[in-house]
């Protein structure tokens, strides 16, 4: 565990598969959005392609050590429009990740730009080593 490479692997958020129950509930398709994760000086940055998702329809949850992103998408066409040619399907987005202890859960921030979600996962600052006073009677 002390080997730097091993540690780098262990704190990679692990994607979990989208729950089929969520898809069944809405009766709509649910996609696993493509993501990028990279390291910076301050921590990790996660990018996810979520076209059609707005700040109102995006939900980001951190529960225990699990980060879940849920993006709801509605049809881009007005009511009464007939789909005459289809090359892509429209559905919601769902993906979750396991966060390591290295991430400061309290300081996670997110931005949504042109259909791309950017989540900044800052590294938790290591507590200072505490000196324990040893006394003798």
């Amino acid at each position, binding site marked *: 565990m002390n080997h730097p490479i091993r540690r780098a692997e262990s704190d990679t958020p692990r994607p979990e598969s989208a729950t089929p129950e969520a898809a069944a509930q809405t009766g709509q398709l649910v*996609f696993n959005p493509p993501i990028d994760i990279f390291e910076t000086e301050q921590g990790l940055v996660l*990018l996810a392609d979520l076209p*059609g998702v707005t700040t109102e329809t995006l939900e980001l949850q951190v529960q225990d050590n699990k980060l879940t992103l849920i993006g709801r998408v509605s049809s881009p066409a007005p009511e009464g429009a007939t*789909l005459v*040619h289809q090359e*892509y399907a*429209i559905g919601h987005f769902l993906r979750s990740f396991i966060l390591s202890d290295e991430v400061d859960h309290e300081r996670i921030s997110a931005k949504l730009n042109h259909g791309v979600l950017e989540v900044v996962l800052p590294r938790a600052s290591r507590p200072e080593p505490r000196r324990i006073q040893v006394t003798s009677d």
Partner: protein
Amino acid sequence: MAVFRWGQAFDAFRDLEREMDRLLAGVSLSFHGVRLGRQYPPVNLYELEDGLLLTAEIPGTRPDDLELTVADGSLTLKGVRSGPENIPDERFRRQERPRGPWQRKIALPERVQEDGLKAEFSNGVLKIFLPRAAAATPRQIPVSEGNTADVVPRLIEGETERRTEGGETV
């Protein structure tokens, strides 16, 4: 000659394609919107009362990098999907998002008022409204007697006018 009426030619394939999409949706969840052998970006087309609506998902394309041009009956979409800048490859733990320049040329159907095109781009979704042109009035073609040889259209077997299923004639 082109005999197919645009907008109805896809009907036969639509149900099949939807069924295929439903089946494939369960398989290729991790590559939303990107399917092998297909042009980027994939587009959907809707028929509205007063025209057509073309939609495409192009997340990560900045409005400044998006270029739409109409010329000679075709619409060209051009853009760049930008990735994070100045991040060396070894810093990536996961890299699934497509990036780089893309371009797609789409033949516009007849009866679209080319100078009336309107585009909207928000949240990574591009919407292009193609207004329907006023119906053309029938034009009489004068026929004169001549001695030009008849031109017989050459038909290759298996390659009839039903070549629309490729989806490129949008």
